[in-house]
């Protein structure tokens, strides 16, 4: 994508850029959501029993959904952007056929059912051992710590409730649009659908972040040698998150001046406040966990630790953009991909990769080559933050996001896109090395 934006292949038609962008966006959101949920479910088996069958069914259905999306975007050239803002899917101007739009909605339906089943099953498993009040840790607030609830249970409960709440909105969207298209109902209210779309979309990506954080809570203590137990703070923090995360999505509608003003202000307030528990509890505690801990920095803790750092840095960028008067200048510029790639790529992806590596190393009990790990991590950091910086600088320079080609007066757009290619190569070098090493370990684990 960045090669096209840099203008290296001027002959490529723009529908390719937009179709690939849609696939990349939806695919990445989906893949890391599933990877996070899968890794978290796996770690949960230490405490409760999620059903393996449900996990496999959900994974299978996810694969079907993803295949449909691949077909819709690469074959059908569906280019609607990852949040497919109503009514764009129905205005293709001849670029994509109706079946691609239908495939999009069927895929979303399949994925929705799969993920509802899966998160529902995680909640069911937790309910098999704890009551809801306990799983949310409320008894800690009244000074009791019996039964003891590990943080990952609380985070999983909060996350899965969030996912289900988000999916309710997705169902409503599908019903409303289905009624309009198939049932001959009147045109839908675009502002309502946009609210629902972002409520759902924001919830999904936000919760993916929490899956990653759950992995850190569970695995990091094994390396720093200090426990990470539930206490009043942890409980307060995650319950605040549960309450606030429902309103943060409002920051996606700041530039819809027709939205009631109190909702806009609520958006800024809740976006600001939701950062407080993250910073004061999770990020601060990661630092406490590490400070003078004699940690041996093998790859897994390094990636987890770097992931928390990416979360913090991306969070600052997000808060800046969730300020309404700043959003007036940053909305839909490259600042937006800048901040979410920071806490996705440099946050949740690193956390998940770290967790997978931890499992691979644990299963094979191999002595890790620390030098190789260090090279890997260095590639990821240099490549990743270089790419991020190219996004941030372009965003602050008003370069719009989602432009297949930049108009002549925006000179910094193609220039920064060109520079970012170097960093993307470095990043891919690191990822390639990681995949090779982890693949090797997994193959060994399977043979053993």
């Amino acid at each position, binding site marked *: 994508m960045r090669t096209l934006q840099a203008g290296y292949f001027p002959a490529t038609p*723009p*529908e390719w850029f*937009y179709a690939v962008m849609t696939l990349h966006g939806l695919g990445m959101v989906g893949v890391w959501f599933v990877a996070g949920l899968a890794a978290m479910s796996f770690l949960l088996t230490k405490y409760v029993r999620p059903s393996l069958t449900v996990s496999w069914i959900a994974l299978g259905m996810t694969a079907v959904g993803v295949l449909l999306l691949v077909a819709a975007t690469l074959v059908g050239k569906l*280019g609607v952007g990852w949040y497919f*803002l109503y*009514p764009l899917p129905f*205005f*293709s101007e001849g*670029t994509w056929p109706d079946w691609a739009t239908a495939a999009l909605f069927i895929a979303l339906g399949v994925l929705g059912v799969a993920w509802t089943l899966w998160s529902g099953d995680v909640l069911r498993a937790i309910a098999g051992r704890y009551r809801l009040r306990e799983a949310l840790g409320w008894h800690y607030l009244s000074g009791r710590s019996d039964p003891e609830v590990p943080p990952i249970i609380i985070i999983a409960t909060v996350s899965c409730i969030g996912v289900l709440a988000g999916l309710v909105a997705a169902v409503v969207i599908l019903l409303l649009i289905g009624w309009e298209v198939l049932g001959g109902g009147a*045109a839908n*209210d675009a*502002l309502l659908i*946009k609210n629902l779309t972002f409520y759902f979309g924001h919830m999904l990506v936000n919760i993916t972040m929490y899956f990653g954080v759950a992995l850190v809570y569970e695995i990091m203590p094994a390396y*720093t040698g*200090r426990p990470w137990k539930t206490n009043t703070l942890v409980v307060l923090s995650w319950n605040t998150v549960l309450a606030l995360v429902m309103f943060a999505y409002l920051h996606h509608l700041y*530039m*819809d*001046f*027709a939205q009631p003003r109190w909702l806009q202000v609520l958006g800024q307030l809740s976006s*600001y406040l939701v950062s*407080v528990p993250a*910073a*004061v509890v999770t990020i*601060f505690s990661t*630092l*406490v966990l*590490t*400070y*003078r*801990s*004699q940690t041996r*920095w093998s790859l897994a803790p390094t990636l987890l630790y770097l992931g928390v*750092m990416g979360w*913090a*840095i991306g969070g*600052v*960028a997000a808060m*800046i953009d969730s*300020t*309404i*008067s*700043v959003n*007036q*200048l*940053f*909305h*839909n510029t490259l600042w937006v991909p800048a901040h979410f790639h920071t806490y996705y790529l440099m946050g949740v992806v690193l956390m998940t990769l770290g967790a997978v590596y931890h499992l691979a190393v644990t299963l094979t009990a191999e002595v890790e080559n620390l030098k190789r790990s260090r090279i890997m991590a260095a590639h990821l950091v240099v490549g990743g933050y270089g790419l991020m910086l190219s996004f*941030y*600088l372009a965003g*602050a*320079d*008003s370069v*719009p*996001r*989602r*432009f297949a*080609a930049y*108009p002549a*007066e*925006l000179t910094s757009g193609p220039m920064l896109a060109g520079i970012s290619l170097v960093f993307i190569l470095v990043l891919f070098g690191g990822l390639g090395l990681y995949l090779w090493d982890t693949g090797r370990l997994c193959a060994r684990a399977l043979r053993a």
Partner: protein
Amino acid sequence: MTTIPLLLFLLSAAIIATVFAVVARSSGQEGAVDYARVNRLRGVFLLSLLVILGIFLTLTLPRLPYPVEAAVPERIVNVVGRQFAFSLTEGPGPESLENWDRDFVPDVQVPAGVLVEFRVRTLDVNHGFGIYTPEGRVLAQTQAMPGYVNRLRVRFDEPGTYNVMCLEYCGLSHHAMRGVIEVVGEAQP
């Protein structure tokens, strides 16, 4: 204007990276955790964070970009978007896709220094009405949403050619969807 948020961000990112690096480095040494001290530190961190957020809220909330009813705009420009162009005119502009060719106006002239209200609509999908300064910086923006009129008020200080670009992805030629505002007259102090 966009340099302040960028610098703020780079500064915060540098601080965060430094803290993480220092803590990672410290992990070579051995030391027990003094939890009373940790909690005091956490309290200080919480308080400073709340104070910082409070300062930013009081600084930014009075500067919302939404129209204030008390102020009366001196010019009204009707903006209509469709895949893939903006029509800008002080007249009513195209009311439907059928009349697009008849009523479409690609550019509008407004005087510098007066309060202009853009009434932004769309005839098909969502678009983003983004006004760029002659130097290529975003000056202001609002969405164009089916079924709604979004009112964006701007006072142009400098005369010149202000390009309009679409800032909400709207399909194949989204990046080529534009309009023009000519600001004429004297530069305002």
